[in-house]
């Protein structure tokens, strides 16, 4: 979903950077607060960031005959809430922009907005809605991760369509084109990401029950039942 370096007109690049900046700044504050209040959560924070690192490095073949990669942002958003994921996602994007020429500095704002802001918030929203309506933990985790992944690629398609409207069919025509490249390719990958996130969450439920209860992912006292339900 990375928009390549220099591939957004300067005005668009600046606008997306301005849109992303408050989320990242707010995220840095939330992250500092979390680490100060709960130093022991640093390790799990690292693990959530690491999950994004692994997943966004994996280019996987898809049904459209091209390759794309998952985002891994759903897990961190569910565990630590979206603001913190805005920071972890930005770190991943910076690493790729600076060392891999994947994405870019001028397009960082736009890429942060899709991967580190909209993805985590959309995924977290779906997760919370499902949990409140009584869905089992793992169903909510899968749907949250799936949504975080897919919504990221939809936003990228919109960003490109706005910057490069089709001369004949306008923004809508361009959206169909970029959506075909990004969003359709992404559907099976979003399923994969959902399944991998469920796998990691299952491992966390076994290994870090106390931490998950503190973060509110597992309910106090209901932890045993949750673990059995999955």
């Amino acid at each position, binding site marked *: 979903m990375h928009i390549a370096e220099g591939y957004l007109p300067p005005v668009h690049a600046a606008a997306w950077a301005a849109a992303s900046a408050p989320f990242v700044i707010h995220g840095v504050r939330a992250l500092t607060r979390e680490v100060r209040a709960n130093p022991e959560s640093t390790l799990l924070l690292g*693990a959530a960031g690491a999950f994004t690192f692994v997943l966004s490095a994996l280019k996987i073949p898809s049904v459209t005959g*091209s390759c794309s990669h998952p985002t891994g942002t759903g897990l961190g958003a569910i565990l630590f809430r979206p603001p913190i994921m805005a920071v972890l996602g930005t770190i991943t994007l910076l690493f790729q922009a600076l060392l891999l020429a994947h994405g870019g500095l001028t397009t960082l704002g736009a890429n942060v907005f899709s991967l580190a802001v909209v993805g985590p918030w959309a995924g977290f929203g779906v997760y919370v809605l499902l949990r409140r309506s009584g869905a089992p933990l793992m169903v909510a985790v899968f749907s949250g991760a799936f949504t975080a992944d897919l919504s990221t690629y939809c936003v990228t398609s919109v960003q490109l369509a706005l910057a490069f409207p089709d001369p004949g069919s306008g923004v809508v025509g361009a959206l169909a084109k970029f959506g075909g490249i990004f969003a359709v390719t992404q559907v099976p990958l979003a399923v994969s990401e959902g399944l991998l996130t469920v796998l990691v969450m299952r491992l966390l439920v076994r290994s870090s029950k106390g931490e998950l209860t503190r973060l509110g992912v597992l309910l106090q006292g209901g932890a045993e039942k949750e673990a059995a339900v999955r």
Partner: protein
Amino acid sequence: MSRNAKINTLLLAIVAALAVLPLALGLGDHKEEPFAGADGEAEAAITEIAPDYEPWFAPLYEPPSGEVESALFALQAALGAGVLAYYFGLRRGRRQGGARVAAARDARTPAAGAADSAGAGA
């Protein structure tokens, strides 16, 4: 294999199948360059829509070859996988250590209790 391990293996198998099926079914055969990156395809689409558009900024550093780029991607994945493995390894070790301490305490307590009651009886 426990039920838990079976479910985890099944999850991984489905993910692997989702990645391999497009290759096995030849879903990229209609393309000149099958299974290229979607990011690159987007660049091509931009050039198609706006042939006059010139990228106005170039990456500060670009890996000198596809091989070096692959190496850096592998490094990124390895860093992430390493941290995840460290986390779960540490947790597992702590849990096992905790269980061992608890078991040792349980083994000691009844004996100590018996000695106490023996002492009280004397």
